[in-house]
């Protein structure tokens, strides 16, 4: 694979770091200037990422070494198809989320907005860093930066509930990464002598089967950001964050960093051959299936909208892991393309939750009766995104589930196919009632007293509603014209 050297990956990472610095400098005094830094940074970042796509589609790789920190270990970037797919998704969605954030924060007149926007920028910078990293060392550094920069975002509301949630968030993410992930990285370094990602994996033949299995288990336990059970509790706990945080970070950036790292470990550290020989692929697939089903069942029982979405996310992330774990071409394409599909759909769903909170100050599903009349755009977008999650054509989610199903048949794992079908039914079971309630149930008068004493008209806020319409439409477009991302995904497994 031909390698081009270019400083663009570093620029993509640094853009939002500079923005964070400028945001901190500008502060509350010049709010519009401060917001413009965020928007400018997100657009520039997307532009840089987009400009790197064409060489990747031609089969080339972009490399850049920043600095050699320790002898043999450098902060190095290597942009390939997988990385660019993730980066495109995250950076594009950041643009939309920035507008959404501004609308959300201003309508609720939230405090500490400077800290919010600055931490957001740093978190996105680190997300790009993970997407573009060339070795596990760089990945780990940016992985931890994400944890640290999102902690203030989770604790934003500063209520005791928020602080407790943030503490649990930090405990799970920091604890597993230091105790398990770092140990796994050391073991890999010790066994393979290097931490660079390679298409054939670096661990083949470098240790006994027992050692390699232990390393694999440590990796899976250490990448808690992928929210595999039983290390998933941080995600519901993080729902105390403001909704834009839940939307971009906990549906797109943070969790996708988790599954992205899992994919990197599976494909570029272990390699398909090694994993299938060790039988670990199948084991991981069944673990993921367990998470898919159980998380969906727990989602059914949630009344809080954001919590239901959180458990849905846990379930959907395991689809991606399942796709990669089955180790067949189609399933991997399905898993990888689901990164993007799920991102767009889930962010729409969270945006809707936030819009409902802003306009009507409601958080529980039982309170949503009849809301469809007052907030048609929001609830329609919700409906469309639900279709994508369930996997109904023409929404994008159908494409990923199709590939997953084909992949599971290729791998001759019929139980997995059953899991896919059952989980789709479960998805329908916990998504469709919400839309039904919103459009077809009568508005419950008892719920009108929402604690703010408003009997006001519930009006959708434009700056909040427009982004979610955009993302909902994109979800459909991804289903109708999937080729752009499909070619990228197929490029990964070439």
């Amino acid at each position: 694979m031909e390698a081009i050297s270019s400083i663009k990956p570093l620029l993509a990472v640094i853009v939002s770091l500079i923005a964070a610095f400028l945001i901190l400098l500008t502060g509350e005094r010049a709010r519009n200037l401060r917001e413009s830094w965020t928007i400018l940074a997100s657009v520039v970042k997307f532009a840089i990422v987009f400009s790197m796509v064409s060489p990747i589609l031609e089969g080339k790789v972009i490399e850049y070494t920043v600095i050699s920190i320790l002898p043999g270990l450098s902060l190095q970037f290597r942009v390939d198809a997988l990385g660019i797919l993730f980066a495109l998704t995250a950076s594009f969605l950041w643009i939309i989320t920035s507008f959404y954030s501004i609308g959300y924060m201003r309508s609720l007149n939230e405090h500490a907005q400077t800290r919010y926007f600055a931490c957001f920028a740093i978190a996105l910078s680190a997300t790009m860093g993970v997407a573009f990293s060339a070795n596990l060392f760089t990945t780990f550094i940016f992985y931890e930066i994400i944890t640290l920069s999102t902690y203030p975002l989770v604790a934003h509301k500063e209520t005791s509930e928020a602080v407790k949630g943030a503490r649990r968030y930090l405990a799970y993410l920091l604890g597993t990464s230091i105790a398990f992930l770092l140990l796994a990285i050391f073991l890999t370094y010790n066994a393979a002598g290097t931490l660079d990602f390679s298409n054939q994996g670096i661990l083949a033949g470098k240790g006994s089967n027992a050692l390699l299995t232990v390393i694999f288990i440590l990796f899976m336990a250490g990448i808690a950001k992928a929210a595999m059970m039983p290390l998933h509790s941080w995600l519901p706990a993080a729902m105390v964050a403001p909704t834009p945080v839940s939307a971009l970070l906990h549906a797109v950036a943070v969790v996708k960093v988790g599954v992205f790292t899992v994919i990197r470990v599976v494909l570029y550290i272990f390699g398909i051959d090694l994993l299938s020989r060790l039988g670990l692929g199948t084991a991981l697939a069944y673990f993921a299936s367990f998470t898919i089903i159980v998380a969906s069942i727990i989602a059914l029982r949630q009344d809080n909208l954001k919590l239901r979405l959180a458990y849905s996310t846990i379930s959907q992330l395991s689809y991606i892991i399942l796709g990669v774990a089955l180790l067949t071409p189609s399933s991997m394409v399905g898993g990888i393309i689901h990164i993007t599909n799920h991102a767009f759909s889930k962010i729409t769903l969270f945006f809707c939750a936030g819009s409902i909170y802003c306009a009507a100050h409601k958080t529980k599903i039982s309170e949503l009766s009849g809301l469809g009349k007052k907030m048609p755009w929001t609830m329609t977008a919700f409906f469309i995104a639900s279709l994508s999650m369930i996997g109904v054509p023409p929404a994008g989610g159908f494409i990923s589930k199709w590939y997953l199903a084909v992949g599971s048949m290729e791998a001759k794992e019929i139980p997995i196919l059953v899991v896919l079908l059952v989980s789709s039914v479960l998805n329908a079971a916990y998504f469709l009632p919400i839309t039904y309630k919103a459009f077809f149930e009568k508005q419950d008068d008892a719920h009108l007293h929402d604690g703010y004493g408003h009997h006001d008209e519930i009006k959708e806020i434009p700056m909040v509603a427009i982004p979610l319409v955009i993302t909902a439409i994109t979800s459909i477009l991804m289903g109708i014209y999937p080729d752009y991302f499909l070619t990228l995904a197929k490029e990964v497994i070439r």
Partner: protein
Amino acid sequence: MTAQAPILIIIIPLIASFLNVIIGLWRKRLCYPLVIITLSLSVILSISILNTVITQGVIHYRLGGWEPPWGIEYVIDHLNAFILIIVSFISFTIAIYSKRNVEQEFPEKTVYFYTIYLLLVTGLLGITITGDVFNLYVFLEITSLAVYALIAIGRDKKAPLASFNYLIMGTIGACFYLLGVGYLYIVTGSLNMADLGRLLPDLYHSKVVLAAFAFFTVGVAIKMALFPLHVWLPDAYTYAPSTVSAFAASTMTKVGVYVMIRIMFTVFEPRFSIVMLPSTEILGWVASGAMIFGCILAIAQTDVKRMLSYILIAEVGYIVIGVSVANRAGFTGALLYILFDAFTMACLFMAAGAVMHKTGETSIHGFRHLHRRMPLTMAAFSIAALSAIGVPPFAGFFSKWYLVLGAIDAGKWIFAVLLLLSSLLVAVAFFRIIQNVYFPPYEILIAGSEIALPSARNDKITLMDEAPMSMLLPIVIMAAGILLLGFFSGRIISTIIQFTVPGGF
């Protein structure tokens, strides 16, 4: 000038301390500028020494022109030069910091404080630079006496007793060291480190040498507060004035480790310390105890300075583990850790001192919402805390990387696991404080019933009342160092540290 740098670096602070008494009794306000000028000179000299060592190799400086082993010789190799520059830079920075602290806590003793401070710096630089074991004892005692005096110089009522207990234990340690010197002298007739290194290998089977080694190790262990001989440290560093805690915490224990490395690997050969005696094994287990014990006790504290003292005990454990695994990676990690830990501890203690200066207390409860009042100080505190935990991209991560790598290379998996585990414990200890600073919980339990405290937006302390510039600048410099130096670890290792690793590793 550069040829005389080794002796100048000792003489300048020494003479300055005497000058300080005279000048201070004449005009008190001149003490502080004198100290700053002196220490900046010593920083410049230490940089020049480091430069000479890197470009030309080991420096041998003979006092008075007397040939070793009859005369005292100053030998500076990469290890010395490295520690020299750390000590002089930190002493310079903390001297800048000291002004407001002295003014607030004990203004009537300004002259004496700075005099003893300069003596302390002289002592530390002397320990680092000398090549003679008895000369080291002299400087060790100069250092110790200065520290005993400085700890008790403040207003805290508990300080004198803490200093007294430290004095008793420290004297035992120094006397053991002296006994070690004596035993070695009996069998070799020499006091010069290089000479001893040459003469001793023939005598390794002798019990006298064994006893000497034992005395050295225990004596130095007391001085550097290695568990379980650390008992004096928490009290001494908690009740000492902020400047003294910061300086002592960041330099004295590190110089103690340096002495241990010198004894184990220069005076005695590595094969003696590692193969013939299982001393590195024992040290490894003792150090693991230090790590775990220090971290667990840190979590139990309610006073920030006391918590930092226990973290310091754990940090000494880390460094000693790095030395004990006796391989290249571990040793590199230990030295890198010395550098970063000096910065981290200085920053943490200085920040705690700044809080004490502004709020009058250092309990964890007193840190509530402090980021509104002292945002820069708290940001620096958080950066240093994250470095102590070992999270990237801060410097502490890179040094811990090498320590764990060293443990794994030596096949000591248990040490690697303990290292990672203690990082988590340190994280728990620090996050209690960080959470209190940025996101304190709103309801606290008073007598069993929850009482809601006013919300963030109504809190009265919204004015920014940051620490004075002379305190803030050093804290920020240290924090910046922690942020940036981590990325230069590679260069530091390739230019300095890789030459300090003893042969045979």
